[in-house]
């Protein structure tokens, strides 16, 4: 396995709910390696989603450090974070988060628009990406004209179009049926492994962890156990 792309050092996140303090993430230290599929597994309230938001720079930690390629994410301002997300990060959400007024193609090209990629090039790249996720014939449909699975494929295409170093997926199959779930996981891991991209998946579904190289089990905002499947396989051999 490659070097560490993300290093998390003793990160805490405390929410103030009225007079009560809630420790969502309670001192987690973790390294995520380049090119691995890392699964953050835990029940609802285990702090897995909060941890993902912290790593992706959507939220600021209360304390601790998150270092992405030697850069401290917790110290970045809004502009730097926007730039960071644009360059290095792709997102797949449970609820797809497509813009309803744009076609599949336009949704996929959106990250490239913000990156100032010329129209012709971005349309070519979007078409390639849509073909890769099996939606070449749906490029000009709007989200409401597509099934949940198809919408999630569009959002996967959008996450990968910019060739990000890391793709974050937050319960990517939460709204899909079992068969589609496997299709989606096959697709997303295949895309990631093709370009040796790192994939961080947050889920409560134990079955998804089958796709992971490493499973980080979270409970009450702390790391309960880390299961390194590659190492385990290596040991078996």
């Amino acid at each position, binding site marked *: 396995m490659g070097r560490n792309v993300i290093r998390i050092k003793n990160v805490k996140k405390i929410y103030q709910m009225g007079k009560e303090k809630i420790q969502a993430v309670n001192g987690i230290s973790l390294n995520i390696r380049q090119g691995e599929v890392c699964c953050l597994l835990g029940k609802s309230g285990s702090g897995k989603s909060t941890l993902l938001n912290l790593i992706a720079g959507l939220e600021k930690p209360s304390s601790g450090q998150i270092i992405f390629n030697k850069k401290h994410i917790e110290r970045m301002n*809004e*502009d730097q974070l926007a730039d960071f*997300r*644009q360059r290095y990060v792709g997102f797949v959400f449970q609820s797809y988060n497509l813009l309803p007024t744009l076609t599949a193609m336009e949704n996929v090209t959106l*990250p490239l*628009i*913000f990156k100032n990629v010329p*129209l012709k090039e971005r349309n070519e790249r979007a078409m390639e990406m849509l073909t890769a996720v099996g939606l070449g014939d749906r490029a000009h449909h709007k989200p409401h004209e597509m099934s949940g699975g198809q919408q999630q494929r569009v959002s996967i295409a959008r996450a990968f179009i910019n060739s990000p170093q890391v793709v974050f997926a937050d319960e990517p199959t939460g709204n899909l049926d079992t068969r589609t779930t496997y299709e989606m996981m096959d697709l997303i891991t295949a895309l990631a492994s093709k370009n040796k991209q790192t994939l961080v998946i947050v889920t409560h579904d134990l079955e998804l962890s089958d796709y992971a190289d490493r499973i980080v089990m979270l409970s009450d905002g702390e790391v309960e156990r880390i299961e390194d499947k590659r190492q385990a396989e290596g040991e078996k051999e």
Partner: protein
Amino acid sequence: MSTRDLLNMALRNLLKRKLRTFLTVLGVVIGTASIVVMVSIGIGMNESFARQLEDWGSLQVIDVYSPNGGGGHYMMEEEGSSGPQNKGKQVKLDGAAVDSFRQIAGVEAVSPIKSLYLMIGSGKLVADANFIGLDPATMEAMGYKIEDGRALSGEDVKAIVVGGGVEFYDPKLNWEMRMNSEPPEIELIGEKIDVTFDWGYGTRHADKSVKPFKFEVVGTMPADGNNGWSVIMPLKEVEKIEKAQKEWEKKSHGSSGGNNQKRSKEYEQVMVKVDDIKNVQVVQQQIKDMGYRASSLTDQLEAMKETTKMLRMVLGAIGAISLVVAAIGITNTMVMAIYERTREIGIMKVIGASLRDIKLLFLTEAAFIGFAGGIVGVGVSFVTSKLVNFVAMQHGSDMTSSIPLWLYLGSIAFATVIGVLSGYLPAKRAMKLSALTAIKTE
């Protein structure tokens, strides 16, 4: 984000909510149109003043008088500013002065003026009129209006131009009979007529020793103008007649013209034509600084503009209020848009839109509303302006509306700026939305 993508996206967002966009734009249309129409009425007012004054003569002409005419009071005022070398020295409105006026930058033509009240005779009819003697070459430049025929030119010697208000009558009739009879119609152009200082001309009281001067009428001036009751004649001829008159007076009444003789080289009045109305006040001030008295119709124009300044400001303010209301409308629309599009903003932020992109997107949308409102508003004001002028014409009112090009372009630019300003607060708000909370919004 490229400008093209920005414009494209902003336009699409606006077209998504057609009715709301339309209503907001409508507000700006009304605001812009009311400002433009109000300002145009103000401008129309000033133009109509200028037109009114034009009837009384050219706005580009300055009348210069000798400082002696108004008494020493004026001179004493000027002495302080003209320096010690001028002390005690009287400035004279003579040939040298006329030459010095010609040297002033912006002066197009200069002519001394001498006027004389004389009799005209044409056949059996006579008329009395004020004769204005000027350099015939400058008559056209001085803005004298011609109704028929032509103005005097440099070559004219024994030629005159008669005002339409000069009334001819039969000198044999008494005053009462004259009032009751229709004034006789006579064709003057091309006529050889008599000009004389003998008030008995045409009657039995006529002085046979006075020989009338012969002139040809080359043109007429409209009766309603400033010079409707005057006759224009080359200056040299007026001077000749004046000289003859004085000699005759000396001979018949024994009065001494000695005092006048001394000042014969001085003129009562000099007309100075300036190339552009904008330079009139500057040239006028220079002439005043030389120690002469000077006045022009622009003095009146400035005074008229000054008195209506308040009214024009109130008109402008009424228009401005409607535009302020429109601006609030834009802000409201954009704030609503942010509530509706919170999730969309969040998504854009998460997938890499910079704060600048978000801000620019909202500002562009607001600017579009302003720009569209400005364009349509200017179109509406064009029609309204024509309508105002039409109604004013029907009622014979002097209130007209005039929209210069700068007002059109300026209003469009102004409406766009108003749009951007109105969009600033909402854009700032969109920028500050937390990406995470935004995408969690359902």
